[in-house]
């Protein structure tokens, strides 16, 4: 188990932000990065193209300090959303402890959301991970757009949240819902600590 190392008393959680292209994964990380006190944030690595699209992935290490005797680290990753970067997505997904699926709330992006969710499931399965068991939360981003362009959280729940995982409406640029999402996934990932050791 990579999550907890009892020998070195370290806990490392790898959380991957997944979702279709332009749904706001990198924006989530940027917002978090902006809120992290200097001494706790590592250097955010962002490999982006000229047009600001994530080519490889973003990586944001968070040092949470010593909690209950364990040095706790969170590693936040994003995957490139574009369809043709699937190899990178698989790579990033390796060893993930939890997944945040950032959906684009725009009505016309619904198909892309579904496609990306299916892609997530396939890529997890390739690593022998059941998409039903890995901690997952959904984020419905861009809820600030005009209401005639977007689906409401309830509609999105209906359309893509068929596993009934926690979902959060968000507006990542302004930061609404970003930390709620992060807290929810962290809790779910950490809860698995005890479950995994029982199995």
């Amino acid at each position, binding site marked *: 188990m990579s999550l907890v190392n009892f020998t070195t008393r370290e806990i490392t959680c790898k959380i991957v932000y997944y979702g279709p292209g332009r749904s706001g994964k990198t924006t989530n990380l940027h917002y978090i990065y902006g809120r992290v006190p*200097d001494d706790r944030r590592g250097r*955010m690595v962002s490999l982006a193209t000229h047009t600001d699209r994530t080519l490889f992935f973003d990586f944001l290490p968070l040092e949470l300090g010593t*909690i209950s005797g364990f040095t706790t680290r969170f590693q936040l990753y994003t995957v490139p959303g574009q369809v043709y970067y699937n190899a990178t997505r698989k790579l990033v997904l390796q060893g993930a402890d939890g997944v945040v699926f950032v959906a684009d709330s725009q009505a016309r992006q619904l198909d892309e959301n579904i496609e990306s969710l299916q892609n997530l499931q396939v890529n997890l399965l390739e690593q022998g991970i059941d998409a039903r068991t890995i901690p997952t939360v959904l984020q419905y981003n861009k809820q600030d757009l005009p209401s005639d362009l977007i689906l409401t959280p309830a509609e999105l729940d209906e359309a893509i949240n068929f596993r009934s995982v926690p979902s959060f409406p968000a507006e990542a640029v302004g930061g609404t819902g970003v*930390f709620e999402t992060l807290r929810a996934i962290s809790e779910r990932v950490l809860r698995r*600590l005890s479950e995994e*050791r029982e199995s």
Partner: protein
Amino acid sequence: MTVDLHPRFTFEAFVVGASNRLAVAAARTVAESPGTAYNPLFIYSASGLGKTHLMMAIGHLATQVSPRTVVEYLTLEEFVEAYHAAVAAGQSEAFRNRFIGVDLLLLDDVQFLADRRETQAELLRFVNTFLEAGRQVILTCDRPPNEIADLDERLISRFAGGLVVDMGAPEFETRLAILKRKADERGMVFQPAVLDAVAGIDVRSVRELLGLLNRLIAFQAVNEGEITPEAAHTLLFGETAAPKREAPEAEIPDQAPPAAAAPDEFAQFISTVGSTLAQQLEAWRMRLREAAVFWEGQGYRPRRILALLEGEESVESESVLETFERDVDRLRELEAEMVQLDTGRAGDAVFHDPDRLAEAETMVRNARDGLAPPPGPSAAWAFEDFIAADSNKLALKAARTVAEKPGALYNPLVLVGPTGVGKTHLLHAVGHALSAAPGALVACLSAQDFLDDLVQAIERERMDAWRSRFRRASAFLLDDLHLLAGKERSQEELFHLFNILLETDRQLVFTLNAPPKQLVGVDQRLITRLEGGLVAPIAPPDRELRLAVIVRELAERVGDVDDALAAYLADRPAESLRSVQGLVQRVVSAAESQNESVSVSLARETLEGTGYAPRRASTGMRTSGIVVSPSGGIRSREKVVWTWPNPADRVIEEVG
């Protein structure tokens, strides 16, 4: 002596910065739900960084959240003084009772525990009481627990078992925020550059910072005019080191660090992570505690598990639990074996301490080595050599049944018959057949050996070992039980052995020279038990059996069998097979000494002519006359006489 909480020491008045964010988040969590998240909460920092402030803020918030919460704040010094006073007054119980209703114990400056063992012991008891009752303990210190000199390990582990957080010196932004807030509180207005300049001084503590501010305030008040940055500079930097201005790092310039007033999302995030993690680790600790309690209840020392809990060992908990379980299983095996080997030592503490498994192994090994298996049956006698006849039909059948299904049908099997009819042969044949079974440990010995062994054990005071030696046998076969007549102690031991073996369906076989009821000097308890099995008589050999034995003996000794000679010998009266063998032996010896071939005439001459003395019955009690060594060899065929007969009655038979 208990100090009231300082009204201004609240969370609102506490300036949060990067250096104390975790501590504040933890403190808030604790204040909101005392006793659940981090217990105890141990806050340490250098002096003057707000430990006491934070601690009192917890007290304030806790009473706000739940007004009934009873908060007790005291410094360690006060705690110690009160304790000593109580002890001096003989009221130490009252001292403890004073804290019974306290929900939140705030203990300041515990670094004074250093080198005070007695106080540490009392505090440990206190902390334990609080933790067990789910009541919150918060401690502050100027150093981490493991750096308090000579602090009891148990206290260190108790402190580390909750949450240990530190607070660093404030960085520039925090210093500036503190200065602004304090200036506001005092109603003072400074030019922005003035406070910037003060915040730029790399102070070690907030107190020092406030000291600088006080000087500015005093200076400004005295001079009745706004102090200029330059004046502040002169006032302050004249004494301190050159200003060390820390430029706030901004790696992404367009996303400035949040202002202190904004809701601290990151702190909340850490708080969430912290409490979730604490719950999970608590679940983990709980499981270990349960395991420890379980094994302790089972009588095994869970030291190893407790060590894990106290964080003294940093290994994977599951593997520790697994190894522990495995070791306990092994200890159980060893103990069970020890019960067989040496009951007296089976209760030894080593069998209940997995950490002393190696010792237990050694102890059992020694016991095993020091304990020879009970004497076994001789391989010289087998069922194949036993000649069946009407006279022994029942006994042979029963013996074969017993050999096939030990302990199932005839238990005990008692073979009864006069001397020399083959009882011993049959007994050993059964023993030999039973030994073939895997794991069988057949004790097969004469009553005399049994007696000798017992006497030796009594002499050497090794009765437990002696008993275990026989009690672990899978079958117990005793020849000539009647020899134990009058030997009360032997009968007593045999009686207990008999019962133990019978209860566990282990086969018992005895030989007797007379039916049980006719035994004299044997305990009635034994007699009735013998009768409870199958008493199989073996009669003196009939002619048919005698003839068969003679034919076999002649074939073995001289090669060819003279039918007339065999018939002649078979017609001779003989009460036992041994006397039949004796006849053949005498004839063969005579033939050898006279250098003649064996014949009827020679036999007649030898047996009926001079030198032949009719056999007279001896008055002594006689054994089967055969001494069998456990290795299977037959040492002597000479009769062994227990009650020495009248010399006139002695008959010396041929010795082969």
